[in-house]
């Protein structure tokens, strides 16, 4: 058991015993190999369920406003950025929140392993190596090889807001070029990009797991569910799917915290993040704004400045 897991359990035990919180939102071991699952601990007896490792992939901030009462939340860097945005947007009461910050080395992308070895039968993580027995063979991977794509470009592995920090901190890796993935996509021709996103949109089954996993998609009525007026049909095809995905991304402009939970939640492996990343880069370029870094910095779309760039509107 990792020492962070032990610290999390001890902290949760104290918070619950002292009556400081009603519930601790964390992770427990899932029923599938390399899969942790969100859990809600309300009694001291249950705290030993809590774990912390490279399989804790869900963004728990998505539960922060759904669970009532005073709550402690196990919070990675990206989760903490989502909490900042939620606090800024008045979706959370700070006094009801106790943020248990943990630094994150990144999470495992099970799909990369399953693409090679088939469905995973069993797996163990030890000393930075992941040993896997899959349906079509066994193999060993370094953590770096199977790290989620989001985590490979992560610049905020340490929580930006927290009430307590458990475990050490993670050094932020230097990135020679920010948003290299976006630049690569932009360098492609229109037809190449159309082909790429067309293939991605063909995979989408409109299950809305991306939207529902997203901590910042909290609209009570999403535009896709609205029927007066009906913005789009239930048709599952390239055009309608892109309308949904692009609409969602635009709604996250200046808000998306690049946690990647949308792409991880997608059962079809749609590269949703490619759209979000482009939006994040545009917001950074145009407004020098990164969402969820500080409660004191107003979100890009909430501030008007006379010299805001309008290159998309008029020639500058």
């Amino acid at each position: 058991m990792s020492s962070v897991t032990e610290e999390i359990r001890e902290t949760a035990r104290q918070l619950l015993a002292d009556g400081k919180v009603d519930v601790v939102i964390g992770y427990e071991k899932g029923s599938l190999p390399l899969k942790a699952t969100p859990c809600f601990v309300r009694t001291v007896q249950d705290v030993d369920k809590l774990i912390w490792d490279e399989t804790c992939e869900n963004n728990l901030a998505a539960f922060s406003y759904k669970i009532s009462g005073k709550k402690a939340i196990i919070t990675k860097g990206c989760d903490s950025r989502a909490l900042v945005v939620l606090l800024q947007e008045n979706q959370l009461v700070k006094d009801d929140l106790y943020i248990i910050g943990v630094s994150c080395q990144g999470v495992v992308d099970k799909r990369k392993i399953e693409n090679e070895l088939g469905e995973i039968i069993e797996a163990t993580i030890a000393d930075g190596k992941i040993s896997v027995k899959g349906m079509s063979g066994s193999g060993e991977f370094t953590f770096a090889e199977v790290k989620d794509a989001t985590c490979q470009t992560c610049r905020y592995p340490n929580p930006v807001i927290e009430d307590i920090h458990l475990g050490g901190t993670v050094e932020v890796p230097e990135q020679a070029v920010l948003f290299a993935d976006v630049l690569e996509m932009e360098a492609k021709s229109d037809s190449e990009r159309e082909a790429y996103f067309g293939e991605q949109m063909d995979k989408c089954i409109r299950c809305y797991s991306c939207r529902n996993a997203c901590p910042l998609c909290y609209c009570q009525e999403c535009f896709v569910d609205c029927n007066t007026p009906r913005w789009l049909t239930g048709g599952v095809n390239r055009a309608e799917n892109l309308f949904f995905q692009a609409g969602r991304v635009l709604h996250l402009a200046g808000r998306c915290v690049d946690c990647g939970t949308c792409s991880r939640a997608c059962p079809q492996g749609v590269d949703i993040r490619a759209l979000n990343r482009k939006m994040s880069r545009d917001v950074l370029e145009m407004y020098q704004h990164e969402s969820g870094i500080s409660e004191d910095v107003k979100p890009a779309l909430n501030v008007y400045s006379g010299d805001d760039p309008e290159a998309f509107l008029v020639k500058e």
Partner: protein
Amino acid sequence: MKISKEKFGQSVDALSSDYRLIAPVSEAGGVNYKAVKSFSDVKQDYLNSKLPPKSLFFPQHEKLISYVKNGKDVTVKNELKVEKTILFGVRPCDAKGLLLLDKVFKNDQYQDPYYYERRNNTVVIGMACKTIAPTCFCSSMGLSPASSEGADIFLIDLGDSYDLEIITEKGKALLGDLGLSELTAQEQALVDAVKSAQTTSQVDVSTITEKLDKMFDNPYWENLQEKCLGCNTCSFSCPTCHCFDISEEVCQNSGSRVRTWDACMAPLFTLHGSGHNPRSTQKARWRQRMMHKFNYFVHNNGDIACVGCGRCIRSCPVNMDMRQIIDGVNKAELVVE
């Protein structure tokens, strides 16, 4: 009895002027059932399709009728299009799934013309599973990796050939006299091994229907759904989920009446026009999911509406595991009134 894959393929391809062939193929999202030009395009080594074949009979979004209004004249067009189809390579769980959908859309009291016509014009060629995923649990649902229920013709892959069994008259009529040969002793041993295989994962559903009779108000439902995101993944990947919504998609003077999959996990499910929703909480929606599959469907149709394919388990973003939820029902304490 045995037939070489080459000869089987030739027989299927010979029918291509009358039948379209739908079979597993590899595409960007995984293996799925798609129309193929020739039997040689069919993917032979696949665990199961990413999505079940139900959408071939009951599409996710389907135009039922379309209409054009011109003054007081309205022209209505029936949008039903049916093609004679060979559906190749259906796994036992999904073949059983089709039988369960039949109970809803193609029964003594009611025949849904869209589903019914497609189903009647399709011959299902089933395929035994030689590899079994750790999340498969069909053996607990009255099936097995080699059960032929729901197939018109059933195959077991023997490498260069198939063990072929004609199950129904429809299957017999499709291929006619194929000139089958006897299995060798070695092949017979392989067939026996496939037929005796069971899934490693098991659940107990022996008393679940009776138990659920007494569980509508049970506290078990209270926290069960807490981590559920309320997305449609489990329903859309389920071979037996069949809830739908009918709506009008209208633009000025023309429009169509469409049927779209609905999913009990979504907040819009059973939302009334008045704004009232009898299942307004995720708790009520999860109870509905379990009751519908393991209780109501059994009372109405005599069968559990789960085939143990495991897709919902593999696809869930937060690891809601149907096997654990079934187990939880079994272990739940009944509230004594």
